[in-house]
């Protein structure tokens, strides 16, 4: 069982990234749960979601102590970094956040997600960059499962699909360079 907490600002695609992850797990025949938490705002405010992927039945859908934290901005990085399980992983959007977690029992990956998303052709795809990094680090789902979800989601929007896929692959590559 792996518990992931994805957090950021409303509008950064935190919830979409979580859904891609959960959908991919489902397509691979695993047990999944996805629990979002967000304020009343469409943009701004805070958004996070807990995604659990497991081989067995999932009891609690909460993610109080995540195995992995994916933080898309600085406030969520600092809010949740202390909660990550000892030995866990933190992926932080280095383009707009520092990466000092104040502890040395977790592995922190500083991924310049906004910069890589711009390189991929769409700054809004920063969520896909960190998702790429997450999949490359944990192998919790297959790369092609995420790509299939993207294709399904952006059917008829070839350009959007292409930039998101590029962003996802840049995220994978960013981890390989670390």
């Amino acid at each position: 069982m792996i518990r992931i907490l994805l957090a950021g600002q409303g509008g950064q695609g935190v919830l979409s990234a979580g859904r891609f992850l959960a959908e991919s797990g489902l397509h691979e025949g695993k047990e999944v749960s996805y629990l979002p938490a967000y304020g009343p705002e469409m943009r701004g405010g805070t958004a996070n979601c807990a995604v659990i992927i497991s081989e067995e039945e999932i009891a609690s859908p909460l993610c109080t102590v995540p195995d992995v934290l994916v933080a898309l901005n600085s406030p969520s990085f600092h809010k949740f970094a202390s909660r990550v399980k000892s030995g866990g992983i933190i992926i932080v959007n280095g383009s707009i956040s520092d990466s000092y977690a104040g502890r040395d029992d977790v592995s922190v990956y500083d991924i310049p997600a906004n910069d890589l998303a711009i390189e991929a052709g769409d700054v809004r795809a920063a969520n896909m960059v960190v998702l790429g990094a997450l999949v490359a680090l944990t192998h919790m789902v297959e790369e092609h499962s995420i790509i299939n979800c993207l294709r399904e989601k952006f059917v008829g929007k070839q350009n959007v699909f292409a930039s998101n896929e590029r962003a996802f692959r840049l995220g994978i590559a960013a981890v390989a360079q670390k």
Partner: protein
Amino acid sequence: MSKILLHGTEAICEGAIRNGCRAFFGYPITPQNEVPEYMSVKMPEVGGVFVQAESEVAAINMVYGAAGAGTRAMTSSSSPGVSLKQEGISYIACARIPCVIVNVMRAGPGLGGIQPAQGDYFQATKGGGHGDYHLIVLAPSSVQEACDFTYRAFDLADQYRVPVMILADGMIGQLMEPVELPPMRDLSEIPEKDWATSGHYGKERRVLNSLIIKPEELEPHVNALQETYNEIYRNERRALSYRTEDAEIVLTAYGTPARIVKSAVNELRRRGVAAGCIRPITLYPFPDDAFAACAARSCTKAFLSVELSLGQMVEDVRLAVNGKKPVYFYGRTGGNVPDEEEIVRAALDALERAEADQ
């Protein structure tokens, strides 16, 4: 059939539509807005009716009318909105009209907050409106159950001619999980209602009414309702017990907190504490038999009710345990949800208190 990923709110809608719901009336309120949103798209597709009413009061009375005419009808709201519906629910219960009411609970009292809570247990199970009546109350704890229980709710409502409430917490509404959807039921399979005010067409005159002015007529009517509730109590109590056979401490919770409690039970077992839990599925009728069975075991030292309230279901637990064992309580409010470790600590504390009190 393969599973699909759905929100709890969407699963509720699918459960309803697939068992013949063809009329939905609602008014927006967080955290259940996805229910009317989904219904507004789906109802026209299946030839049903969707109305965004001018208020919750109007919506429940539209249910009264549509269900009275024999259609399977539903309304949905969240705590403050469900309070507004109580007058209508009491009328519907008195007129013996089957329908389904969904409450995706948020934190109260008052307008409260929009995060998950379970503070409406009393309102749902003890009769939130006036007079001697009950609803059947079902408490889903997964997205699959949100679908299955809503599907089942329509059959229960028709069978007993009582309104059925789906009492979910805000977490179930937002949670996404894989769901296997039941097949779409053919409307012709649903038993005909020989009491419905579905038009005269040469039939005998039918009346559905909740005004029964003569005491000598109202008392037998209320007694007949009570007989139905007794029958429901005998037939429909449901609970799931987990590792209670040798449990020293029996935890209990319903809805999503029941899943956190289950995780806590597993953690307590890992630490060598014989813990188990009971998850009520029907809140009315309350599954007192499951609790009585545990209370009768010599291994069981204490019960602990865990709720997103300041102690409501715990009263029914105490009635069921009937003084045989101490019953303790742990609750959070305001939209806060206890984590596994908090519940583990509460359970250890309850065991300690039970031993000290002996």
